[in-house]
């Protein structure tokens, strides 16, 4: 087995934004193999932009993103394709293809990118669906699934090619606490039993406490990382009062003063 402390993603001096407008700068962090790493921040702080940079959908202004030893930012087209095989992505709403059944959704990457014999593709896809608890829903259309089931199906599709990194964009957005807790359990299971590294963008506090090994917190005022570490530690002893408020769900004093 590989060294558990091995660094699988390393972001160095990243600066990102749209057009002339800088959203984040001076971003540095590392993700270790097998850990659940959470990117946190208030609304509009650039979490989703950072995630788009990490998964190669949107190029940053400056900096380097090393994934498994290759720099995504400087990679040419072939290297990028190679890098895309190394991670799976689950988009915010699941992004399942509406015209395909759940099974066909999971089979799609296997059909397009591998030379496996047909029956084996089906077996792999069904095994992934069983893993996320959706075996019985294999023949359903995505529109027939509940929100939580769609997220699970999206995770199964992201795992179809056995990537070692999964990026999840707000996995618990719009889910009830029970479904959300079930998803958390699945993420923990996959991380611990299969050694999959998770990078998750979320601001669901309950989820963060239960799954995150480490978090970084982005801030729109300073445009950079203002806190890094374990969620429980940051809640109790972060230096920045804004970070403590975030973890303790306290309103901004300015807002509460206005109401009073």
């Amino acid at each position, binding site marked *: 087995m590989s060294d558990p402390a*091995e*660094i699988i993603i*390393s972001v160095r001096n990243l600066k990102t934004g749209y057009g002339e407008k800088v959203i984040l700068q001076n971003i540095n962090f590392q993700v270790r193999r097998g850990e659940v790493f959470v990117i946190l921040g208030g609304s509009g702080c650039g979490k989703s932009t950072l995630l788009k940079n990490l998964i190669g959908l949107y190029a940053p202004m400056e900096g380097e993103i*090393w994934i*498994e*030893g*290759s720099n995504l930012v400087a990679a040419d087209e*072939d290297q990028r*394709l*190679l890098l895309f*095989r*190394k991670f799976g992505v689950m988009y915010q709403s699941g992004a399942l293809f*509406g*015209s395909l*059944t759940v*099974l066909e959704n999971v089979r799609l990457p296997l059909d397009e*990118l*591998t*030379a*496996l*014999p047909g*029956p*084996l*593709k*089906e*077996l*792999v896809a*069904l*095994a*992934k*669906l*069983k*893993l996320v608890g959706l*075996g*019985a829903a*294999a*023949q359903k259309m995505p*529109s027939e699934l509940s929100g939580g089931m769609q997220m699970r199906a999206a995770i199964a599709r992201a*795992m*179809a*090619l*056995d990537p*070692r990194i999964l990026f999840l964009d707000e996995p618990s957005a719009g889910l009830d606490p029970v479904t959300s807790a079930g998803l958390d359990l699945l993420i923990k299971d996959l991380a611990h*039993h*299969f050694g999959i590294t998770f990078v998750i963008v979320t601001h669901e506090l309950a989820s963060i406490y239960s799954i995150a090994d480490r978090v970084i917190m982005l801030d729109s005022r300073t445009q950079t990382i203002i806190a890094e570490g374990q969620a429980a530690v940051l809640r109790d002893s972060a230096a920045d009062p804004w970070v403590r408020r975030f973890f303790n769900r306290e309103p901004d004093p300015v807002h509460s003063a206005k109401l009073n």
Partner: protein
Amino acid sequence: MIGNQNYEYFPFASRVKNAMTATAQNELETDVQIGADGCARVILRGRLDAQAVPACWNKLELDLRVAKLKTLEVDASGLRFCDGAGLALLRYLNMGSMTPHATVSVFGLEGGLDKIFRGFTSEDYEAFRPPSRIKCRSLPDEVGNWVRHVTSDLREQVAFLGDIATNLPPTIMDRKRMRWAEVFRIFELAGANAVPIVSLISVLVGLIIAFEAVEPLAKFGAQIYVVNMIGLVMVRELGPLLAAIMLAGRSGSAFAAEIGTMKVNEELNALETLGLDPVRFLVVQRIAAGILLTPLLTFYATFMGVLGGVLVTLGLGFPLTLIFHQLTSSVHLSDIALGAAKGVVFGAIVSAVGCLRGLQTQEGPSAVGISTTRAVVTSILLIVITDAVFSILFFVLKQ
């Protein structure tokens, strides 16, 4: 570690151009031993990943299918790495799919892998696999469904017509509710912005018809009557039709997409719970704009079409005064009135159908696309049917 070009764990890398070439450590050894007593053993060593599985599959198919086996043992103790595709191969062998009459056992999988392997059994496969899809409905069933669909759609169209009829007059009377600014916005989008494309198409259609008509008429020395023909055809038929079809393609579809997207985003629900009727708030304005602008667009299309025909006859050497005389003697005020009346009706049809299809939008990602398609198809169908009704009526009235 950073900078270390290690692709070892990525079985699918080989599908990518310029990927690392297979090295010794990426190889899989497949050893098949078949005994005379019908007992066989497959020994797998090395990496069983998606890259190695297809070749391994082929070898096993060749070796195992031919032999009549009683038992098959798969020894996986030599596997150094196994991914989802490898486990699927082991499960496939274990289910006996390759060796129909043999009892198959897989052993020697490393602890963690074994747990994952046992996590997906042949019972799971049987329970979850897709049923063989031969669903063919009988003809009466299909016909019945179609009739039911058409009649229910017809009922909805009639109900919608009633809805508009009850909402249109009171809303137009009420200046505050009518939102004239919205009407003018749509007027500009659907009317003024359509002028260039309507010009081009009408001139070209006029030109084409004139060219096609010139030759047969020349046989009778009646080339000058091209002008009469173009005048009548454009004013009575093609002007209104061209304008309406352009409106259906450009704006009917846009209405359906706008309102459909609003429905998908629950904006229509929001309107209703705010106490605002979507028909009064969104549909009436569009229909008013359609009714106002289509006659204008019709006149314009007619003018441009006639211009196209006139250009051809001018090119043939006829003087402009003669052409003008022919036009005025053949086209009467009643023809122009008919064209305008058609414009009003077609405008109402196109905008109403666009709005109705938008309001009928269902759930799902392709719903808005389906609505826009249906808007255009239904609009054009209704336009042609109405045009036929106009022709018959006019013919009967003239008798």
